[in-house]
């Protein structure tokens, strides 16, 4: 099953490699990993998407908690949460394709953020599945480049991951 693990970690050099190293050393898989600073500059927040049986996920969270730099973590998949991923797609856009792609972007609530005579760049956020659907809806020959951030998430309501 897919799990999305949110980690508060000391904002120190090497902290990221401790997490990445743990996954490679123990043979766990990482589907995506995003990391950035939080409102507290001494802390980074990492969002990690992984897959595995209940036993594997239990081991992953225990092993992550053992890392000295890890302050706190939660498995977002265990409760109500919101997930978003950012994507930018550069698409060939000439002739009547320009209108077609623009309306497709509208349907998916994407924004055109760069225009040249022959290309568009479309920015889109949403759940990963929505981004997948948009990419699938565009003729693959016209896609020049796809950049995705990997999902990041936050739990709903008053519950939060903080010190």
């Amino acid at each position: 099953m897919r799990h999305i693990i949110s980690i508060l970690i000391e904002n120190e050099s090497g902290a990221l490699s401790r997490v990445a190293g743990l996954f490679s050393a123990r043979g766990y898989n990482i589907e995506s990993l995003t990391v950035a600073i939080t409102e507290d500059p001494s802390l980074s927040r990492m969002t990690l998407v992984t897959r595995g049986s209940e036993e594997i996920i239990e081991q992953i969270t225990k092993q992550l908690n053992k890392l000295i730099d890890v302050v706190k973590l939660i498995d977002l998949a265990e409760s109500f949460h919101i997930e978003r991923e950012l994507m930018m797609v550069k698409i060939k856009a000439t002739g009547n394709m320009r209108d077609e792609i623009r309306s497709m972007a509208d349907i998916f609530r994407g924004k055109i953020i760069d225009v040249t005579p022959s290309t568009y760049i479309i920015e889109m956020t949403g759940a990963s599945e929505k981004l997948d659907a948009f990419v699938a809806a565009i003729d693959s020959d016209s896609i020049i480049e796809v950049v995705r951030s990997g999902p990041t998430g936050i739990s709903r309501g008053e519950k939060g991951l903080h010190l």
Partner: protein
Amino acid sequence: MELSGAKILVQSLIDEGVEYIFGYPGGAVLHLYDALYQQEDIKHILVRHEQGATHAADGYARSTGKPGVVLVTSGPGATNAVTGIATAYMDSIPMVIISGQVSLPVIGSDAFQEVDMIGITRPCVKHNFLVKDVTKLAETIKKAFYVATTGRPGPVVIDVPKDITAPHIKVPYKYPKKVTIRSYNPVVTINKGQIKKAVELLLSAQKPIIYSGGGVVLGEASKELTAFTRTLGYPITNTLMGLGAYPSTDKQNIGMLGMHGTYEANMAMHESDVIIAIGARFDDRVTGKLDLFCPYAKIIHIDIDPASISKTVRVDIPIVGEVKPVLELMMELIKESSAKPNKKALALWWQQIATWQAVDCLQFDRESPLIKPQYVIEQLYDVTKGDAYVTSDVGQHQMWAAQYYRFDKPRRWINSGGLGTMGFGLPAAIGVKLAHPDADVACVTGEASIQMCIQELSTALQYKTPIKIINLNNRYMGMVRQWQEFSYECRYSHSYMDTIPDFVKLAEAYGHVGIRIDKPEEVRPALESAFNMKDRTVFLDIMTDRTENVYPMIEAGKGHHDMKLRVALGSTTDRELA
């Protein structure tokens, strides 16, 4: 008080109460060595190879419970230390390793003797620190000792760039009395509900067994384990790392379990209905094939490390906490409980165990004209009255030492259990002897293992650490040969050496006493005279039966109930030995 980084580091170790530091100098740590030269509180033990430094510090730590301290230079000094760091990591031994590093401005430029020590050791340390600011040095050292010695112990590396220790840069020094790390809280609150459930299950058992490991030794809970076991009257088995935590000579102790454990311990595990695992981690050498492991048992598991619980074997009642307070709480509940151990069921269970014990799985040929390695260990036990510190290397001799030296006290059996590091025994013995100068220290080894750190014989002379090396010389890498005999139709691929040194001359060349023993009747007198030479290191080169195997054995892919036993006394089958 304003001090240079080098003096801060040395003063911090003094303030931490460090007695010995095991190390080897080099370019990146010259400032540090200069600071060491100018003090008399800490004794520096100069080894002959950095691997020896780590094992000696490790032996010191295992035999005392205090953290071992190592100092090595950057680059090759640091990489040579890695095997010893990994050894300590696998067995949860508290150590602090200080490695020199090239100066901060040249880090990353492939400078002379530069290696990414933080990166290299990351997977085999509890934590590591790169010191980037001399004003944080003292605090970092305190943190390193705090992390190494609390919770589940382990090695911690402090990588110190040379410019941090520069003599002309002085900053105020104060060694913190206490540190906290917000992301590290080793003190856990014990879940009393779980303890209650565990006690209920334990007292309802018909065929219980106590399975205890190295965590009892590390957690100084030997007394509590002994009281607990005696109160219940249940059989107990120890892991390789747990030997000595419960007296081996006690009748409730049915021996070690696992691959080369006793038949009775493994059969009792297999047939049991309730297992309480105490400070043990269900290592693959203990469990055998996981699908076949203890099919009828409900399992209680006490461990300080939550990640050890249900890692390989699902347990029914997990208890996270230090062994000692957990056992104390359990004892209280057992005493208060109206339920008592089921005497009738227990009597039947002990009867059953007696039938397994009757197999006498540790028998060996006592009439052989050749020296049997098991006999040597028995004699070693006898000559030292079971009271020696015994270190070992890795292989057959290690298993024989574990099987035939009956450890009654914790911290007496010093071996590399998790990593299985050949070369561990001799330097570890030096560390043990430094910590216990009046005790008998024996290093049980083989002619292959001993050669991996043989250079430390020189260290043993310099620091006058009179240890006794019991070299079970079978002219084979015995354990490799045994596996090749069992699983590769006696194709003894590279498991023997065409040239083996004359160990007597070698010992003499290093300034020690060397004795070669060829006949069984020479074993006892040689051991006696070796241990009578109180101030000399003695190398006993004992020519043992080349064909001897370690029995009993759980072969790969088998369960506890399926042990290979010795076929018949003295049987060597037709092994076509080279």
